């Protein structure tokens, strides 16, 4: 029985999974810190401990993400776009558009009929187009990140953020707080601002009926609702959305191993 590992070293967090026959066996997440190599090492240890396996049990490892070059135990590096596409295709085969909302960037990927990357667009130049914007406002309001989505859904009157900048948005949030505006209205406003940026990205690659959301953004019910409102479609949310890219890497690792076996068999 062979096991496979997908390691996704992101700029903020690192995610890893172990699979067997395409099934998710163990997953682990930690902060990447400044040393990607150490993060990869700790991620592997954590995953193996959770799955009660030893390094020899892993037949093949694929690394992805910004720090994919710092994973010495991987047999291949694959772009996070391809891994994300593969991961979502494994979870929802009919999906043709994936919105991947990360802590420092947002990717929108369009998949072909056979589940391969047909087109993609990345927003990574500006914090206000990523989950970081939510993080900054949550910090102003002193609310835990996991609570902001549900709280934002209580608002009937989202505030309008006048600039598209996370730094200016932070000052705007401070002003609204001092004016006594309810926190849920501020949160609903920032979720809507991010949803508008995401929707502009989606329109650049083209929206297909079956659309999914992955990355940490997929855990945020408030963001999902605002994006759905903006795009006019329902979003499919995979279980463990932040592990989709790592899962895709593990599925690709299985494919790599299978190809090698076939070529050895001649």
């Amino acid at each position: 029985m062979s096991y496979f590992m997908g390691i996704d070293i992101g700029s903020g967090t690192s995610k890893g999974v172990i699979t067997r026959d395409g099934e998710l066996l163990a997953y682990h997440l930690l902060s990447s810190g400044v040393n990607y190599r150490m993060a990869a090492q700790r991620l592997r240890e954590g995953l193996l401990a959770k799955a009660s396996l030893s390094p020899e049990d892993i037949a093949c490892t694929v690394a992805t993400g910004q720090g994919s070059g710092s994973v010495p135990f991987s047999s291949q590096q694959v772009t996070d776009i391809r891994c994300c596409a593969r991961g979502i295709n494994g979870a929802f085969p009919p999906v043709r558009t994936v919105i991947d909302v990360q802590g420092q960037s947002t990717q929108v990927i369009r998949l072909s009929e056979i589940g391969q990357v047909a087109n993609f667009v990345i927003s990574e130049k500006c914090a206000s187009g990523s989950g970081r914007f939510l993080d900054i406002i949550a910090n102003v309001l002193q609310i835990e990140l996991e609570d902001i989505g549900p709280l934002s859904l209580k608002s009937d009157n989202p505030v309008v953020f006048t600039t598209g900048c996370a730094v200016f948005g932070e000052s705007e949030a401070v002003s609204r707080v001092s004016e006594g505006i309810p926190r849920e209205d501020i949160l609903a406003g920032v979720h809507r601002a991010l949803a508008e940026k995401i929707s502009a990205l989606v329109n650049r690659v083209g929206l297909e009926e079956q659309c999914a959301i992955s990355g940490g953004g997929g855990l945020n019910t408030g963001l999902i609702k605002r994006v759905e409102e903006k795009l006019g479609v329902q979003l499919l949310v995979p279980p463990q959305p932040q592990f989709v890219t790592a899962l895709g890497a593990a599925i690709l690792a299985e494919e790599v191993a299978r190809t090698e076996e076939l070529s050895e068999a001649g």
Partner: protein
Amino acid sequence: MYFAGIDLGSTMTKVVIIGEDEQVCASIIRHTGAEHRRLANKVMEEALEQAGLPIDEISYLIATGYGRINVPFADRQVTELTCHARGVASFFPGVSLAIDIGGQDAKGLKVRDGKLIDFVMSDKCAAGTGRFLEVLSATLGLRLEDLGDISLKSRNRVSISSTCTIFARQEVVNHLSDGVPLEDIVAGLHSAIASRVASMVRRLKVEPDVVFTGGVAKNIGVVKALEENLGCQVLIPEEPLLSGAIGAALLGKELTLKALAEGEPIQRGKRRLEEATFFK
């Protein structure tokens, strides 16, 4: 006769009072803050006191800047673009391009014969504004006013690849943890802000004289980086924060003299030296 200009910027509030001879008899610079935005009258009172004048002695009072609508005692509101152009031309009559980097925006003004003919502006993003330096000086644990001198010591400035202030902050933290000397990081930040503003003002064609105003013009490191990037000398007025307020006062004088010459009455506001109801 006396003329006053009040420039309510996003970060600083400036008041200038001039006489008929255009000599400055009072100039005050205070933090705008959340309170001062409402209390522009306090800054005005301070300037009147410095000049030793009652408000009735002011023949004309023009408000300008981002918060100009929150000045209930002004006779008239004029955009900061017009006032800056007027003020800069009074210091440097040969000005062709005026660059103003304030706390929350950056502007390029094309000026001919002292008149504004074109402009570019950026106020949607903190990068390329004073805010960029404000955020990053806090990350570095340095005072904003010390950045310029520190950067001059740099021998090997870093390159900051992120445009976004938030992402640049992370880059700065990474450089710090790699042990890069402070001065090389600060010089890198100055180069980043200069290159962003330079690429914006290039749309207006860069010709001498180039004048640089706003709070960021007090930072010698940004001045040098801008000169390097634009490939020409950059002139700085004695007090780079006051060009808008001085321009407003000068415009007030022009309007008054024109009205007097034409025998028209001077249209004054109500001159209520009171709190603006900003938040209401």
